[in-house]
């Protein structure tokens, strides 16, 4: 076994988040590369949630795929969602007490989902009883079922440590960890390391968890051996960071010089602001970062712009509904040439949509949001490393060109935890662009330059800003000639950005130099596409993946050159939306019509196995325009 995919499922509120963090830390401590995606409902307690994790000894395995080798369930419901996700010869762990559960007794499953599951189970097995499902898995897939009495296990805590019986259930999530630890042969000190990190300083909790996990692990090993043990890790990192997308963006922003972040809570963006707040003190003389919870997103962006005018690097973080409310002020920033970064985590739309699920359906919106025309940057990131780098670059672009920068990410990235290299900060520079420090004859909007030097409110010069068209001083004007000049000055920044920005921040190409087909994508589809291309190569399809990072301004010439390597019919956009928005943006700027695509908009990520199939399908059926993916619970 080269890599391992596993899953832990249970109700929201049962500690899955913590489980994911501990396990990832433990595995990272041993030296494995890990990605861990978390799927959950917009609900605080009770609905089904799960962690889908991929572990590799050789790389950071971003390309989540199905089937999984191991499924551990905290509750009975889990198996109903995932019995189809298991690999042959796989393993499941569940509570032996729940075996006579039937589907109709699970109240927390939505009726539609229940109907589908019921139909499928009845067709396949003729029963919805858990016991029968287990039997089926054992028979048909040679799955090994590990049945444990969860209550008895938790009672050990009561017996050994005197934990109150009512509180013992808080340790439920240690049971799957124990099973995983056993089957994978994770050493006890690695588990302890992971637990200790998570519950830093809370010794009792650490003790209980470690005890439980490690004893279960031993028992599992003695009974089942260590069939899921991976080869020794071979990644060349002595040190890794275990971070979610939210975390790493926050870190990038801190390094990039963020000193004022305003926000209004929203999934999946808010965790970034909480992270910054938790780390807002930079150490005595460096001061600290203001993290400001506003009354709404209209205020969040307005406050960020206001703060920026004083010369502070400012940002706000939000998601679709919040950004929709920021649109008017975005135009103000564009008009007044204000550097401000909007970190935008896409989730499933439209409206409230699927608030805790992913999507990539806001690209065209960000490219054209707000009435009127003004320059902006739309920058997107495909993985944690890119996200870190882009978070710094975003500020540089914002200040150098005095434009709002929208850093567009998605929930998949935001909520997945990865083990990545600790970045080397020496490669970064803070580029603040042109700054005017004196007083004298200064005018803020000097039309002799495309980017005129910026002075800060509170420094020596007196400055005016306005949302109206303005004179060089910043006073309202309606003079047609001046209007034309000022308008063009602003818009010409787009050309400048395109000329001056290194290409790697605009797009990246992976794969064959002479491809027969090209996948085109952006954001979190990146590694899944790269892996699909690689894997298809082995089957004789020579292809490439074009990863677009900057959509405004759009690197049209380079992209066109790359895409012209293949017939337009051999370009396949891969996106978490229905319109193929990156494809549309590409057509818009290159004139190359992108007709074909792999689309997924269920809120779940695109998995490698389904992408591979879809690409093969499209490459083998010329007439087919789209494949719509729906895998994942």
């Amino acid at each position: 076994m080269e890599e391992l995919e596993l899953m832990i499922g249970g109700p929201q509120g049962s500690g899955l988040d913590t489980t994911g963090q501990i396990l990832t830390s433990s595995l990272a401590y041993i030296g494995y590369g890990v990605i861990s995606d978390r799927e959950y409902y917009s609900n605080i307690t009770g609905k089904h949630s799960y962690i889908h994790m991929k572990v590799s000894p050789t790389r950071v395995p971003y390309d989540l795929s199905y089937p999984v080798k191991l499924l551990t369930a905290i509750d009975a419901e889990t198996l109903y969602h995932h019995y189809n996700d298991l690999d042959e010869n796989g393993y499941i762990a569940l509570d032996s007490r729940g075996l006579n559960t039937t589907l109709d007794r699970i109240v927390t499953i939505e009726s539609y989902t229940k109907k589908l599951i019921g139909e499928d189970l009845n067709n396949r097995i003729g029963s919805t009883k858990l016991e029968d499902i287990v039997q089926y898995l054992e028979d048909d897939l040679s799955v090994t079922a590990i049945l444990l009495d969860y209550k008895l296990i938790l009672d050990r805590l009561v017996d050994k440590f005197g934990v109150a019986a009512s509180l013992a259930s808080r340790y439920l999530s240690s049971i799957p960890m124990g099973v995983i630890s056993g089957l994978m042969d994770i050493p006890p000190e690695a588990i302890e390391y992971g637990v200790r990190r998570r519950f830093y300083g809370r010794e009792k909790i650490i003790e209980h968890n470690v005890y439980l996990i490690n004893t279960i692990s031993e028992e599992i090993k003695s009974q089942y051996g260590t069939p899921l043990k991976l080869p020794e890790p071979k990644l060349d990192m002595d040190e890794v960071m275990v971070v979610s997308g939210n975390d790493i963006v926050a870190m990038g922003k801190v390094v990039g010089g963020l000193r004022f972040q305003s926000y209004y809570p929203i999934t999946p963006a808010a965790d970034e602001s909480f992270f910054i707040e938790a780390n807002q003190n930079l150490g005595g003389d460096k001061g600290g970062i203001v993290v400001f919870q506003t009354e709404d997103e209209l205020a969040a962006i307005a406050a960020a712009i206001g703060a920026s005018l004083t010369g502070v690097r400012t940002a706000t973080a939000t998601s679709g509904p919040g950004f929709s409310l920021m649109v008017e002020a975005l135009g103000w920033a564009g008009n007044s040439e204000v550097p401000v970064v909007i970190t935008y985590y896409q989730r499933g739309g439209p409206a409230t949509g699927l608030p805790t699920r992913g999507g990539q359906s806001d690209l065209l919106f960000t490219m054209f949001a707000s009435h009127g025309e003004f320059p902006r940057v739309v920058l997107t990131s495909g993985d944690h490393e890119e996200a870190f780098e882009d978070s710094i670059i975003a500020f540089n672009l914002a200040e150098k060109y005095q434009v709002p920068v929208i850093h567009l990410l998605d929930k998949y990235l935001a909520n997945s935890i990865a083990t990545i290299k600790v970045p080397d900060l020496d490669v970064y520079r803070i580029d603040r662009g042109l700054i005017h420090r004196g007083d004298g004859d200064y005018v803020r909007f000097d039309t002799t330059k495309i980017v005129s030097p910026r002075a800060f409110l509170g420094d020596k010069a007196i400055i005016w800003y306005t949302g109206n068209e303005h004179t060089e001083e910043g006073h309202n004007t309606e003079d047609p000639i001046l209007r034309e000049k000022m308008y063009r000055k602003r818009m010409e920044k787009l050309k400048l950005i395109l000329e001056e920005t290194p290409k790697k921040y605009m797009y990246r190409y992976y794969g064959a130099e002479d491809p027969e087909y090209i996948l085109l994508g952006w954001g979190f589809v990146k590694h899944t596409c790269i892996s699909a291309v690689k894997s298809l190569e082995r089957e004789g399809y020579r292809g490439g993946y074009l990863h677009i990072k900057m959509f405004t301004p759009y690197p049209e010439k380079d992209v066109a050159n790359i895409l012209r390597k293949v017939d337009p019919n051999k370009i396949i956009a891969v996106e978490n939306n229905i319109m193929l928005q990156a494809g549309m943006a590409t057509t818009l700027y290159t004139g190359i019509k992108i007709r074909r695509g792999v689309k997924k908009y269920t809120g779940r990520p695109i998995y490698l196995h389904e992408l591979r199939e879809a690409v093969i399908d499209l490459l083998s059926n010329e007439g087919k325009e789209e494949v719509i993916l729906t895998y994942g619970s």
Partner: protein
Amino acid sequence: MVVDLKSLRTDVWVDWCPGCGNFGILNATQRAIVELGIEPNKIVIVSGIGCSGKTPHFINVNGVHTLHGRAIPFATGIKIANPELTVIVHGGDGDLLGIGAGHFVALGRRNLDITVVMHNNGVYGLTKGQASPTLFRGEQTKALPKPNIQDAVNPIALALASGYTFVARTYSLNIKHYVETLKMAIQHKGSAFIDVLQPCVVYNDIYTKDFFKERIYVLEEDGWDPVVEPGTPMETIEEKINNAIQKSLEWGDKIPIGIFYMNKAVPEFGERLNTLIDNYTLIPPAKQPIAREDGKPIITNQDFRELFSRYIIRRR
């Protein structure tokens, strides 16, 4: 720098209608700045959209003419990022209490040291005279096709309910009173609100100069004590708030101007931030370096490892 009235004027033609109450506000604001002796580069006037919103262009201090209803959050960002600045918001009654009412309430909850000057003319001036939130129900000003069917909001009561610690009313044509009120508001450490009665000669034919001339009287001349000093017992504070609200309902033959309420005992927002952020008061965001001489981030590799040690794992 010597700041005098003349140096506080700009070259921009003041395009308000002849006789507009805004002229009084403009002059008196300039006068207050002169009298306080604040340097123009350390003041920022932040405005919304409307006739009132044009104010900053006519005063030779920093000016930020924002969006309709959003002056307060823009101002909030400015003040928090650089608390050394004196930040004054000029907004219309529509701007602050209609489209901006949510921000108006939120500012009260923070007691951030900003002064909000509301040009209260009972109409949406710049869009040609629709009813503003301060026009009473049943009133029909010049441009209205029919009498107003929405009730007026009481700005003073709303400010008090929202938590403003300085709440006053003045009259745009009583320059002296305006100047004194604004000066006190600026000097007050906390969120200050001034309701300025401002005749709109073009669209408001009810609340005219003549109307106000007969009715306005000064609260202070009336043995009125609105001030809460630190240490005042809760009941006294509640009583003063109540008195202020009761006073604010007075709108008829007599209309009071003056300070309705002033509470010196509530911690200002910057002080609150200072409890969370090391040295916020000393080195607020606008004073923090973010890069080293060579352009590298001020956060070094070592700083990074310290700050985020919880997220870094050294392989066993």
